Every structure is written in C-alpha cells, then in structure tokens.
C-alpha cells in the first residue's frame, strides 16, 4: 500500500487556469473520490496523477517518489477509463496481458495473472472474445481486469460507471467497493455522480472551478458542508437553503419563518453565541429534507423540534418516503415524510422542523458560519 500526495498542483491550458492550487494527501489504501460538476478540473487532475498531461506547477508524490518527471508507464499506476478504452483488435486475454507483455514479464507468469484476474472478476469465459462482442458491463469488467493485472500501487478510475445503465451501475458500484476491500490498494476515483461519491469514498474531495471546496468523509460533507455549493451538490434531494432573518426574542435568538400566510418565530438554542452577530440581519439556513418531516423518533426528548403548518405545493413519492414540497420564505423546501402522512397538493399539512443539525451560511460569502 502506497500513499499519494498532491502538493499545490496548478494546471493551465494556454491562458486558462484549470487547476488553481490543489493539495490532497491520500493515505495508503484510501479510497478518494474526486467529485464535481463538469469542467471543475477533476479529470484533468486524474490525468496529471497518471502523467498523461504535464503539470504547470506543483508536485506529485507516489509513495516517497516525486513523479513529476516520471512517464505514465513508470508511475506504477493503472487507470480505468469511461469509454473502457479496450484495444478493439485484441481478445480479452490479450487486452489484460498487453501491459504485462510490454513490461517483459515471463509468459508463464502472465498466464497465471490473467487467470487470477479473470477468476476474480468472473470473466473466464470471455477471455477469447473481442471487445466488440461484449456487453457494456462485461467491457467494464475487462477494463478493470486490465488495471488489476498489473497490481499497481495506485488505481485511477475516470468515471468508470457513467456509460452503464442505472441498474448495472449500482451493481458495479458495489463490486468496486468489494474489490477495494479485498485488494486494499489506494484508489483515486473521479465521478460527477454524488451518490457514487458518497457510497464509495473513504474521503470525498468536492471540486469546483479548479479548487477543492471540501475534503472530508462522506458523512461530514453531508452533515457539515463548508459552503452553499457543497450543500447543494451533495445529497439527493439536495439541502434546503432558505434565507431567514434572525431576531432577538427574550433570551434566545429566533428565526423568522414565513410559510403560507403565517410567520413562525422559532428559537435556535444551538450554540447561542453563533448567531449573536446576526441579530436583525439575514442569513441562510440550511437543513436536509429529512430534518423537516411528519415526525421523528425520540422527538419528545429533542427540544429543538418545532411545529410548522404549511400548504403542500407538489409531492414526489419515492417509495420508502414521499417528498413534499412547501414554500418557506419564498423558497421551495423539500420535506421527507412518511407516505401515509403526505397530504395532497393544495392541502395544509403539519410538519416538524428539527433544527438540532441545521447549519447557517453567510448570504454574501456563501461560507458556513461557525
């Protein structure tokens, strides 16, 4: 197991700077996911790690080796591509062994490795087929097999599941995770799909405009996003963000929440000093859809649950629960409720808002207030 260290990487194409100083340390055996909207620079970063493109400035270490000047083949990495990039003229067997042959590994050993990899990925009966004769999922397996065969120190995945249909994608996701648990090799995985990022990663790096916005565990980026971008990007349905006014009422700081005709004044007990600076000013309240519902387990013990009444605008049943959309302070808000409790559009519904894990953002800087 080998670590990967990215230090203040910059990359410019002509005058456009695509990466603006990225620093990430990946622990040995860690599964790091780079996620972000298209154009955020995540694939470029992966190509730089692979050595397929030249770094403008900064340093990349694989293990203890500075690899800035090392060619891709000598970096001890393997990469799985979105288009699979299988060699169309070669059989599956040859696709897997090609990298070993160029490295002049003895034939008998190559044969053994191919068998082992094929066995691990259950593609033994595909070994004598050409890529054109394989389905998308099978090609994906072969592409992974090709990467596995070399047993590299670092695996790089470039949106490997984007070309699969939804069902297969979920299956392969689980398999990749299982694979990682078995081989425990360091992985850097690029995706634009936040669910993939959440389910696979040990840590997620959320990127936007060539900058890492937040680098943290899936749970932390979900529960504690550092800014509005991360809050909106991670989670499905994304976090509700509502502009609210802070007022002083008696001893406590309260939020003015207007929904329908009524305005509720809701006290915030969490960390009282936090909002002191914001009295009589507006900030942005963020809470997840599951924090506004028809009821919570142990709700009696939680004194930060407040009741609201609001008119239902739209409902979206998802199966286990139903998303009910209401309007708070003129912003659409998603509430995750039990299907039985959901009212029809136009009706008024009683909802409970749990502010115990709500977070606040500065409406100008869009950063979390802490």
């Amino acid at each position: 197991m080998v670590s990967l260290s990215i230090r203040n990487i910059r990359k410019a194409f002509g005058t456009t700077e695509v990466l603006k100083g990225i620093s990430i340390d990946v622990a040995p055996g860690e599964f790091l996911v780079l996620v972000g909207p298209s154009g955020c620079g995540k694939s470029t970063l992966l190509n730089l790690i692979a050595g397929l493109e030249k770094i403008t400035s900064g340093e990349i270490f694989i293990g203890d080796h500075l690899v800035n000047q090392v060619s891709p083949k000598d970096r001890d990495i393997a990469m799985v591509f979105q288009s699979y990039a299988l060699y169309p003229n070669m059989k599956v067997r040859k696709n897997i062994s090609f990298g070993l042959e160029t490295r002049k590994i003895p034939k008998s050993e190559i044969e053994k490795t191919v068998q082992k990899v094929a066995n691990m990925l259950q593609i033994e009966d595909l070994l004598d087929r050409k890529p054109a004769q394989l389905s998308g999922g099978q090609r994906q397996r072969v592409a992974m097999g090709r990467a596995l065969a070399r047993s590299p120190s670092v695996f790089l995945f470039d949106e490997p599941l984007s070309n699969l249909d939804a069902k297969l994608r979920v299956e392969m996701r689980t398999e990749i995770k299982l694979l990682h648990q078995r081989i425990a090799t360091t992985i850097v995985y690029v995706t634009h799909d936040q669910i993939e990022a959440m389910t696979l990663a040990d840590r997620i790096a959320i990127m936007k405009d060539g900058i890492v916005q937040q680098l943290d565990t899936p749970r932390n980026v979900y529960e504690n996003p550092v800014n509005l971008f991360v809050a909106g990007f991670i989670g499905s349905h994304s976090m509700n963000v509502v502009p609210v006014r802070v007022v002083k009422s008696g001893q406590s700081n309260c939020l003015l929440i207007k929904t329908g005709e009524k305005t509720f004044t809701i006290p915030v007990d969490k960390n009282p000093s936090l909002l002191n600076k914001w009295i009589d000013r507006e900030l942005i309240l963020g809470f997840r859809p599951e924090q506004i519902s028809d009821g919570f387990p142990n709700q009696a013990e939680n004194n930060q649950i407040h009741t609201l009444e609001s008119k239902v605008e739209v409902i979206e049943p998802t199966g286990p629960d139903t998303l009910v959309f209401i309007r708070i302070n003129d912003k659409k808000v998603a509430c995750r409720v039990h299907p039985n409790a959901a009212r029809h559009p136009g009706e008024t519904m009683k909802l409970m808002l749990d502010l115990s894990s709500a977070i606040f953002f500065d409406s100008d800087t869009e950063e979390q207030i802490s």
Partner: protein
Amino acid sequence: MNDPMVHTAPKTAGVFAGRLFIYGLLILMVFYFLLPFIVMVLTSLKTMADIRTGNLISWPREFTLDAWKTAWGSACIAVECNGIKVYFWNSVKIVVPAVTISTLIGAANGYVFSKWKFWGSEVLFSLLLLGCFIPFQAILLPMAQTLGKLGLSQSLAGLILVHIIYGLAFTTLFFRNYYVTIPDELVKAARIDGAGFFRIFWKILLPVSTPIFVVCVIWQMTQIWNDFLFGVVFSAGGNQPITVALNNLVNTSTGTKAYNVDMAAAIIAATPTLLVYIVAGKYFVRGLTAGSVKG
C-alpha cells in the same frame, strides 16, 4: 413495423406500367453510360477491314485478338515497335512503391497529427493540406529543378518521388481524419500499459486501420496510374508510364490508323484501376464514411 400490408401496394395495371417505365429507363441509362466502353471493346475485337467497311457500333463479323496482341507486344510507339508492355510494367514499377510509401508515411503522419499533437502541429497540418489544392502544373518547373539537383531527372525513381510527395497531402488527410475518430483514451491506456510511440502505432492503431488503408490505396493507385502530366514531364523514352505511351501510340501514325489497336491499348491502360475499384470498391465507400456513424 414489419407488417407486410404496409409495404405491398395493390397490384394494379397502373403500378405495373409504372414499374416497367422505371426499369426501362434505368436499363436505357445503363446502356447509355456503357456505350463508349462497349464500342471500345467491340472495336478492339474487329479486324481493320471490318472497321473500314462497318459502322462504329456494328457487331464484329469475326472476333480476333490480333489487335490486343499487337497493342501489347508489337505496336510502334515513337521509333520502338515493342507494344505497350514495357510501359505497362513501368507504370507498375512506379505505382507499387509510390502507393506503398506514400500510404505508410501518410499513416504515420496522420497518427502524429491526431494523437501526438505538439505545439504548432495544427498549423503544420493546415500547411500540408494546402498540398491538396496546388495544381499540378504549378509545381512542374520547381520540381524539375529539384529532381535535376538530386540527379533524378527523367528517371523512374524521380517520378516515384514526385508521386510520393504529391500524394502525402491526401494520405495524411485521410489517416488523420480516420484516427481522430479513434478515442484518445485508447492511446492513454496504451501509454499507461507501457507502450511507446511506435508500439501504439503498430499494435493498436494499424490493426484497426484496414478501411482507411483501402481508401488510401485505391485513391493513390488511381491517381498515380492515371497520371499523365507528371509522366510526360518527368520521364523520357523507355521510362515513360503507360498513359504517356498510350498517347504516343495513338499519335504515332504510319499509314492507316489502327483503331482496333488503339482501343485495345486504351483498355489495357485502364484495366488495373478498374479492377482495383471493382474488387475493393465497397470498402472504399465504407472507409470514406467510417466513423461518421456511431457504430
């Protein structure tokens, strides 16, 4: 979708007449386009007496291959009376190396211009493309000077060199456009797998290049075999290609004009390119459109 009712029109007399008209017209057109060739073939099989007494499209009174034998082996071209066979082989000697070399270099160029772009490569490619648009006659004098300096004037090697250089613009364009349709990720994967510049070319790209090779070979072979201008300017005497020889044969007049020999020689001169197109033509169309439709 496959309901036969949709496609089967009711069989009325009107429909039948319509079909008859369409096919009749098509057959007429085929005949019209083939007529010159039919006349050539028929004339080449006639005797001179037959030609003098009959008309252009009359059926031969007796079939004879004499004119073909004369054209191939004993017709007089300028002062030599050895037929066009020498010149036929000259053309073969020009076409084979010129096509092979220009195609291979074009493949390598196309590979570099599509997969190993470097600073200025786009500009260089555009400049190279200009070569497709330079008229033959514009380069005759400078090329003659160049060949003179290289000591290749009036030689087969010189003519081959001219054809290679002139063909490169086209072959490079063909291969570059074909390789652009092959995903870059393939090259990236191969680089990570440890393959270098040449290995990627040989092992990954060349094996999938058959369609464009066919296109390139047909194109280059047709161009070079049919070339007259370069042949007439850059070769002399026994080194001339068949197109020039054919012209000389027709223009060498001693007594009566042997139309049957002229026709036979013309067909011999045209046969190789016709054959190539008939044998590989379907790949030509396929290759030209390769990559344009997602497969």
